[in-house]
């Protein structure tokens, strides 16, 4: 088996630009370099028309109108604009928002910022699979609630929130629904009309576009959503996001969205097939392994697996020919395991021993076999070295041991 190493299996962190995307972007660096806001010459017109095409392509991916796409530098900015922009705009209606403990930091932190300014945020807990209780969500909404924010697919576990049901609740109760779809774009069907979404964040580099560009979908009709901008300036993007547009990057994002839409069925079924094979083979070789999150309703490219009795950082160190992420961020003395996995109720030990495999467009069946082989070999080796594995084999209940915490 010949596999070129290192094997990249961290597509949830970022994706390479598709060669078709790069091809489309190239003329916009030096030849078609105009400012899309220049109204009185052909350089500007060409840039504007390229941006308009990208707007249509991105809008088509989520069934929106092109005018509802507000370009940003990525999802972090889009999330900030949605949350802080709506908070400010609708402050007189109320100062209450609802979100979930397993959201990305780019949603958690803007909400924490609002809390420090006196807003109230209700944080929904999740069950073992990562789902919120929809009935509890309905009960949490008050006449002071202006916005609820729930991601489409979780970046660590892949668990899908029931966004269509959440969208319906938001409509019924007259609150805005912001959905961070950073991980979901190109991987599950997104339809802002059908799913009742009022604000949606996207990032190009998660679906084979360039880094540094993204957008916020802002609904224009029923209801017409208005936001107070974070950046003040030339009044670009319907006044919601000033700043000269990154024409080259946006051309890339548009092309990436076109490919994601056109190849959607083929790509998602291929990804799910490879992911399922990886998971099946690893579980067969290492039966103690635990798949985290919802095994059914999840992103097709992602698998988060805990390997009990071995520690995540040492496992990653052993997998030096594979690029994956660990649920344990134990680079500091505080040894902080993933807050997402802890919210699912995993003990710290399982959270420490988890690996996120996220597959993408350029992974092959051979790479899946290689990764399975490497993971099996390394987990087995580390278990032979693990006092916890030895104790478990002796029938000792690890939860009953009186450990010396440090």
């Amino acid at each position, binding site marked *: 088996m010949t596999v070129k190493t290192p094997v990249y299996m961290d597509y949830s962190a970022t994706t390479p630009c598709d060669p078709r995307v790069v091809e489309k972007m190239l003329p916009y660096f030096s030849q078609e370099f105009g400012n899309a806001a220049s109204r009185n010459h052909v350089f500007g017109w060409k840039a504007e028309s390229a941006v308009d095409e990208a707007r249509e392509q991105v809008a088509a991916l989520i069934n929106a109108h092109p005018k509802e796409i507000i370009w940003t530098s990525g999802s972090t900015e889009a999330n900030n604009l949605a949350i802080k922009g709506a908070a400010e705009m609708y402050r007189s209606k109320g100062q209450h928002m609802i979100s979930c403990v397993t959201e990305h930091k780019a949603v958690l932190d803007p909400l924490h910022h609002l809390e420090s300014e006196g807003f109230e945020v209700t944080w929904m807990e999740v069950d073992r699979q990562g789902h919120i209780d929809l009935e509890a969500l309905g009960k949490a909404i008050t006449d002071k609630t202006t916005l609820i924010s729930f991601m489409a697919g979780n970046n660590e576990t892949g668990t899908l929130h029931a966004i269509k049901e959440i969208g319906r609740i938001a409509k019924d109760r007259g609150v805005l629904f912001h959905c961070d779809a950073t991980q979901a774009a190109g991987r599950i069907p997104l339809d802002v009309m059908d799913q009742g979404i009022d604000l949606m964040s996207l990032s190009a580099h998660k679906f084979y576009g360039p880094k540094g560009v993204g957008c916020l979908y802002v609904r224009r009709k029923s209801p017409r959503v208005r936001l107070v901008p974070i950046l003040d300036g030339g009044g670009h993007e319907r006044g919601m996001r000033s700043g000269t547009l990154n024409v080259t990057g946006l051309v890339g994002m548009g092309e990436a969205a076109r490919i994601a839409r056109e190849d959607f069925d083929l790509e998602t079924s291929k990804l799910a097939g490879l992911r399922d094979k990886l998971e099946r083979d690893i579980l067969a070789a290492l039966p103690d392994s635990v798949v985290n999150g919802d095994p059914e309703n999840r992103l097709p490219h992602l698998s988060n697996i805990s390997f009990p009795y071995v520690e995540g950082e040492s496992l990653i160190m052993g997998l030096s020919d594979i690029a994956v992420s660990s649920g344990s961020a134990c680079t500091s003395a505080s040894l902080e395991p993933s807050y997402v996995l802890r919210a699912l109720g995993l*003990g*710290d030990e399982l959270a420490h021993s988890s690996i996120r495999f996220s597959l993408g467009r350029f992974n092959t069946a051979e790479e899946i076999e290689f990764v399975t082989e490497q993971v099996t070999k390394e987990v087995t080796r580390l278990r032979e*070295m693990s006092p*916890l594995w030895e104790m478990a084999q002796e029938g000792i209940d690890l939860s009953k041991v009186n*450990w010396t915490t440090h």
Partner: protein
Amino acid sequence: MAYSDKVIDHYQNPRNVGSLDKNDKNVGTGVVGAPECGDVMKLQIQVDDDGKITDAKFKTYGCGSAIASSSLATEWLKGAMVDDALEIKNTQIVEELSLPPVKIHCSVLAEDAIRAAIQDYKAKSGTATKTEAGA
């Protein structure tokens, strides 16, 4: 995170992995750390009648630096006299493995494991009664 060559060497080729009979009165066992903290070390020594450590074994659940620290500790313990082994300091391990500040706790844990193993050995051989080893 970048690891030193010595950490990588111990991680890839750990010395003295294994277990000794913890019920043997000449064997001292130390188990330190906790799974929820991300490190557990088990370190064992076998001591002859002259107080010399004739064998040392370890098993470690933890990061590469924790594995390397305990592997190195067993190398140093083998052939040492029990009382001299008590002189091994975590700072020597830090220096030998070039551990960065965030990994110093791994060396502290290794020192704790050495002390716990010696203490267990002394308790067992001194009183000649069976003391449950480690945790």
